[in-house]
């Protein structure tokens, strides 16, 4: 099974919800999610973020839906780390 372990997303969001609430809502997508948010740019109404997400298996659709639900907009997927878990199991 191939699982997405880590992603870095470029996101545009309004000032509210705050970075803390925004990260928290994304981390709530699943157990074991780790979210690291960096504000890259800020203007009068919006913030451009770099969002680094790590999990055992990232549910991208749920992440995108959480971003959209909070008024954010996903601009691009800047980095992806994928692992073939079944291959690793057979090796061990």
């Amino acid at each position: 099974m191939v699982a997405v372990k880590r992603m870095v997303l470029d996101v545009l969001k309004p000032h509210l919800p705050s970075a803390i609430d925004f990260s928290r809502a994304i981390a709530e997508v699943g157990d074991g999610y780790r979210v690291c948010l960096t504000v890259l740019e800020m203007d009068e109404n919006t913030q451009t973020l770099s969002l680094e997400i790590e999990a055992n298996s990232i549910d991208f659709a749920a992440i995108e839906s959480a971003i959209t639900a909070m008024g954010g907009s996903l601009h691009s997927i800047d980095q992806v780390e994928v692992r073939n878990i079944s291959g690793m199991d057979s090796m061990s």
Partner: protein
Amino acid sequence: MSLFRQARLLIGLGGSNDIVRRYFVVNGFDGALTMLGMIIGFEVSAPGDLTVIINACLAAAIALGISGLSSAYVSEVAERKRALQKLEEAMIADLGQTAHGDAARWVPLWVALVNGLSPFFISMLILLPLLLAKAGLVLPLAPLHTAAIAALLLVFLLGVHLGRIAGISWLRSGMQTLLVAIVTAALIYLVTG
């Protein structure tokens, strides 16, 4: 997300905490002073039937509540729509189905409820001695006097609340609002007495 956190998020998005707090005090003050004015008005006139006094005050309390509810709702809906449109222009996206859209729909209702219920409940607290007296309870003071004291106490408590928000002396703030109520009462006595 739990319902409580969802509600907190929407209220936070709407930036309504400050507005709600302000409306609560401003309209609560309106309610308290209106009731105080009516009670003193009845006091300086020949105090009549308690039912008439209660009905008149109750009518004023309902009118204050509906006025607060409707005026806040209409103005908040307009403000929230404008803010949402501005944000949609900045995001170049339709935010109607997002938390911001939900906040634009629900926050006006929350603000309107506080704006309407605050004068109504404060008025009802002031009317409580009159209602108790009408129900047959014997009060240590005359019902109108007890209601006037309740009004002064509530005005003082609103001042205390304001003082705590501003981080200044609660006693000083309470005494300031109490002074306003006393001046109001004095003016009513002067004009009608």
